[in-house]
């Protein structure tokens, strides 16, 4: 059973879920009537993209991108049991040559740090946009007395909003 | 070897208490009883599991001098459990109090009347 999951569910499961989450976010963003619900949809939409980026950098049996604090001399971290299956298939890839003499840790055992850096920025940007949108939402409530999209549009159409 | 067994026991104990809390959450009729079950079960199970892992850290502890780092981890683990011990009841209390002021009606058995009011005045 775990073999079946291992071969064809696992490779793509993460990416399917990210598409599902993104579509939930996008749907809420457009279809929801309440402005706060729209913002929750927007945040879900953004976190889904972050899910996509982080699942790019995941490597089977790799540890967290923080080197052991007593210096990165070349030692094999104890690989978790269930990843030796992968080792055989991809054995053929030559050990990537290092530009200089110093042999850093083996890249295949450490998760890819670049998506993590990018996503730190994306999360922070998401929260800032959320903050600004909430502030605008409060101003809309102060002017129109409601946060429902249809009521706001009626008030605008009714023209009681001058200038 | 003995240390792993102790830690496993502690962790399993924690899990058992958590199971109690969850069933309480489902079965109990109204807000207060659920809160009671959740609050208690939660805190204790976290404590036990964290303790279990703290004990497990002692497994390859030889001497104080060269792997003091392990002690640091244990102290932090205990710190977390202390923090949970302190804050979880407070938040439970805060929620309980908010619920009470929002006049959430407790489930009263038929024939009994509710005299919660007289000894716990609302503000």
């Amino acid at each position, binding site marked *: 059973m775990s073999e079946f999951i291992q071969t064809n569910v696992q490779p793509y499961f993460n990416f399917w879920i990210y598409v599902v989450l993104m579509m939930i976010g996008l749907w809420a963003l457009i279809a929801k009537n309440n402005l706060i619900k729209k913002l929750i949809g927007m945040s879900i939409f953004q976190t889904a993209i972050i899910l996509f980026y982080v699942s790019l950098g995941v490597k089977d049996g790799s540890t967290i991108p923080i080197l052991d604090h007593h210096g990165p001399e070349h030692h094999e971290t104890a690989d978790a049991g269930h990843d030796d299956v992968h080792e055989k298939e991809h054995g053929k890839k030559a050990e990537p040559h290092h530009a200089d003499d110093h042999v850093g840790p083996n890249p295949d055992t450490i998760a890819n740090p670049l998506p993590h850096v990018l996503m730190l920025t994306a999360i922070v940007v998401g929260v800032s946009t959320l903050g600004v949108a909430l502030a605008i939402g409060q101003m809309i409530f102060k002017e129109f007395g409601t946060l429902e999209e249809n009521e706001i549009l009626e008030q605008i159409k009714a023209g009681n909003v001058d200038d | 070897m003995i240390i792993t067994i102790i830690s496993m026991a502690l962790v399993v104990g924690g899990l058992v208490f958590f199971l109690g809390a969850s069933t309480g959450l489902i079965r109990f009729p109204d807000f207060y009883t659920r809160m009671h079950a959740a609050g208690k079960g*939660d805190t204790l199970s976290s404590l036990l599991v964290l303790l279990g892992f703290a004990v497990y850290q002692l497994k390859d502890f030889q001497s104080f001098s060269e792997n003091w780092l392990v002690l640091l981890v244990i102290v932090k683990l205990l710190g977390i459990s202390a923090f949970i011990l302190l804050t979880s009841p407070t*938040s439970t209390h*805060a929620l309980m109090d908010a619920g009470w002021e929002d006049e959430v009606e407790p489930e009263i058995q038929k024939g009994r009347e509710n005299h919660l009011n007289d000894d716990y005045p609302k503000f």
Partner: protein
Amino acid sequence: MNFEFFATCAGVALLLMMLPAMWRLAVGPTALDRIVSVNIIGTKTAVLLVVIGVIYQRVEMFVDFALAYSLLNFMGSLAAARYLHKTKPGHGNMPAEEPVNESGLKP
């Protein structure tokens, strides 16, 4: 039967036992029930973080993170309690009319 496998099973057990909380979250007649389940899931995830740390055998990395995590969870439920405390009348889940927030601003 090394310890990692045991830790993974403990983690899975924890996750599965969160299911009733999720169920309460979905069904929860009043908002307060939902906040209770939020509280539970919050503390459990803190513990789960330590479990993940054990699985990765880098507990010292995950420990500070778990502490910060439980702080934020505490802050969340405190905010909810404070909100309910500040907007007084009306029963737990759906206040019939406008909550008068005592900062006097017409909502």
